[in-house]
């Protein structure tokens, strides 16, 4: 333990605790900007300075030592913080009233907190224009404050390294190599950089206008579906606590926005289990292309296309659930409702920016029609609800529309790391044994450990060795593990974002201050698991609408018609460029 004094109070903290953390234990709030717990600890912005003897030190990166006498609130400290923030503001495109982060900008909050009313440094401003070529992630370097939070998220957490500091001094920017567009490099579109950004320098390519236009067009029939993770986070945009489940209110809001049908992606998550579970059983029988790697996550798909193109055959050929549903809406549903498929506009609400890129993939189409026309993030949906003036918190709960509204607990857990594996195991186990599972909770695949290994014995005596991974940095380690050939693996679940889709790049942005004291991955996962437990049906193959769609349309899992609508292929991509 280490003993020090902070603002005259004696504090005892474990070794290696930073001054910032030590101060928090006695309720002292030190402002930060470039600091992001577990990700960025560079101390470069100097907003968190405190007095330590005669010196000003960055409290986020200096470790508490015995006998330190720290002052967090002196005139010198306050002036230094103000100067730092003013200098940052002097080279920041201050169009705060129209900025996408207008209501949750950490720089703006800080400026208010420090009572900054004018910026007297009136110097040159870097003018570089925006990069909005990627269908997923846009960049505005003129708003960038060079804190490095995005860079370290991409480099340390995801280990993709799509962006870095380039050039020097005043010309420094955060960009892909050669200042290329994110669309022209190996960026996986995961959007974790967006949720790391304290300002509006990184944001999703918005499709709100496109969706309003479709809704307002009387000629089109607009169908919306929502991913499992949306319901666990949307409420945050309306001031509800992190981890509140808002399924019924979300459905009610979507109906009031004017969508003609409100479907649940959870239905096709159940369908994915039927298709992917069957694929797994077939591969286990034939011994080919093992391990089977999940294909629900478009960030992971693009990652493997760039970095492990020799492993493409290991990916499940299943389209991701919302793409399956889009394909069925424009075929099975269109026929049932007697609507021309070309009049249907399919919209997906996703916790994810990579889904926008996925939605544009040529191979995810049928008869010249894209399976999904527009993808909106959770944040964009919240934006539409606000624009429509709905009192979200007080909406009465409503139910999804059928035939794609019914789902099981196995589907909802797709939103959290380990969920796809658990859902698959529930079904594969029962199909192979012909017996009902006593306990459907495979807790061994749950939790936030970066790489989870689980050996699960099936009723036919086969043991499935599986790896469950979240975060692309961990995926890289898992791929090396598989390639080493030390052990035989059968099933790999990968979600590109740490924690899984609940903390995807399209989810509500939580401040770095909140993250310092809370694990939002756990909080949102709790909402997901409680939805699962509350469901009467918790195994995908027990969903009556799944049985029905196979009887009426798809025949059986992995049938020819299933392949036409529900399966896809992948593309070898360049290691460095597009």
């Amino acid at each position, binding site marked *: 333990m280490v003993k020090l004094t902070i603002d005259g109070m004696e504090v005892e903290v474990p070794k290696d605790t930073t001054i910032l953390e030590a101060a928090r234990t006695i309720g002292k709030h030190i402002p930060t900007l470039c600091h992001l717990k577990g990700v960025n600890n560079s101390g470069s912005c100097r907003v968190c300075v405190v007095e330590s003897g005669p010196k000003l030190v960055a409290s986020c990166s200096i470790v508490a030592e015995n006998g330190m006498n720290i002052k967090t609130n002196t005139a010198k400290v306050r002036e230094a913080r103000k100067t730092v923030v003013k200098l940052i503001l002097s080279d920041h495109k201050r169009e705060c009233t129209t900025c996408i982060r207008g209501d949750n900008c950490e720089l703006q909050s800080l400026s208010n907190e420090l009572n900054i009313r004018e910026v007297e440094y009136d110097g040159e401003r870097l003018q570089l224009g925006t990069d909005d070529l990627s269908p997923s992630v846009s960049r505005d370097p003129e708003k960038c404050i060079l804190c490095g939070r995005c860079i370290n998220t991409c*480099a340390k957490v995801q280990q993709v390294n799509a962006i*870095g500091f380039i050039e*020097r001094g005043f010309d420094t920017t955060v960009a892909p190599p050669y200042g290329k567009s994110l669309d022209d490099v190996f960026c996986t579109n995961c959007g974790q950089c967006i949720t790391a950004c304290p300002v509006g320098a990184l944001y999703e390519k918005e499709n709100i206008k496109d969706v309003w236009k479709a809704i307002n067009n009387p000629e089109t029939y607009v169908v919306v579906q929502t991913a499992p993770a949306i319901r666990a986070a949307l409420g945050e945009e309306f001031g509800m606590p992190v981890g509140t489940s808002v399924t019924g209110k979300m459905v009610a809001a979507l109906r009031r926005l004017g969508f003609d049908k409100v479907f649940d992606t959870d239905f096709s998550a159940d369908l994915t289990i039927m298709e992917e579970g069957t694929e797994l059983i077939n591969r286990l029988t034939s011994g080919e292309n093992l391990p089977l790697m999940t294909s629900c996550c478009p960030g992971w798909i693009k990652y493997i296309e760039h970095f492990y193109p020799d492993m493409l055959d290991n990916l499940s050929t299943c389209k991701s659930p919302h793409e399956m549903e889009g394909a069925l809406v424009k075929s099975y549903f269109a026929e049932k409702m007697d609507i021309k498929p070309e009049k249907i506009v399919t919209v997906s609400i996703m916790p994810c920016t990579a889904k926008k890129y996925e939605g544009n993939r040529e191979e995810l189409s049928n008869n010249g029609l894209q399976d999904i026309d527009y993808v909106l993030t959770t944040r964009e949906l919240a934006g539409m609800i606000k624009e429509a003036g709905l009192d979200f918190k007080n909406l009465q709960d409503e139910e999804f529309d059928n035939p794609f509204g019914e789902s099981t607990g196995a589907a909802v857990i797709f939103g959290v790391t380990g969920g796809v594996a658990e859902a698959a195991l529930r079904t594969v186990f029962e199909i192979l044994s012909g017996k009902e599972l006593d306990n459907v909770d495979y807790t061994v695949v749950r939790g936030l450990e970066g790489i989870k290994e689980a050996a699960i014995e099936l009723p036919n005596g086969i043991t499935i060795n599986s790896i469950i991974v979240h975060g692309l940095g961990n995926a890289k380690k898992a791929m090396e593990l598989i390639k080493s050939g030390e052990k035989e693996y059968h099933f790999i679940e990968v979600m590109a974002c740490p924690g899984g889709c609940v903390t995807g790049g399209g989810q509500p942005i939580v401040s770095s201050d909140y993250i310092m004291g809370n694990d939002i991955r756990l909080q949102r996962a709790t909402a997901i698991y409680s939805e699962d437990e509350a469901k009467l049906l918790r195994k995908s193959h027990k969903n009556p609408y799944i049985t029905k769609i196979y009887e009426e349309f798809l025949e059986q899992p992995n049938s020819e018609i299933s392949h036409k609508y529900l399966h896809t292929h992948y593309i070898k991509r360049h290691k460095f460029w597009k």
Partner: protein
Amino acid sequence: MENVKKCCANQQTSKTLLKAKEELRDIKGKEGALIPALHKIQSVYGYLPEEALMLVSEELDIPITQIYGVASFYSFFSLEPKGQHIISVCLGTACYVKGAQNILERLSSELGIEEGSTTEDGKFTLQATRCIGACGLAPVIMIDEKVYGKLSSHDIPKILREYK
């Protein structure tokens, strides 16, 4: 004809690439290898072409984004091809007060290029530089390794003729 040309160009590229690969062999796997590697690459190519940065990334297992970050940070490294002869005009304080700006302007008009660029025939690159430590000779320029001092702008055409 065009095909033949293309083929030869490719061959030449691959030869240079092989040489670059050879150069990297000894420093591969060593800590802090990136900057020495870029030095070696620049000595082979005269600058840092994209194919060489990709090679460094592959050989040293360093992300290309980090490599580009370093290459674009240090002014010693050039990401553009340089001319056969590099003319550096000292703009240090002593040279500056002795009229280095006139020298630079005269060079610029004689060569028909802006500071920081290369003549179309690939013969000369014109660049300004900080003090080169020859203040007693101010104003000075360097062409490759050779220093020319106590210059007036009238000397420039004669000096350039040495290299044509």
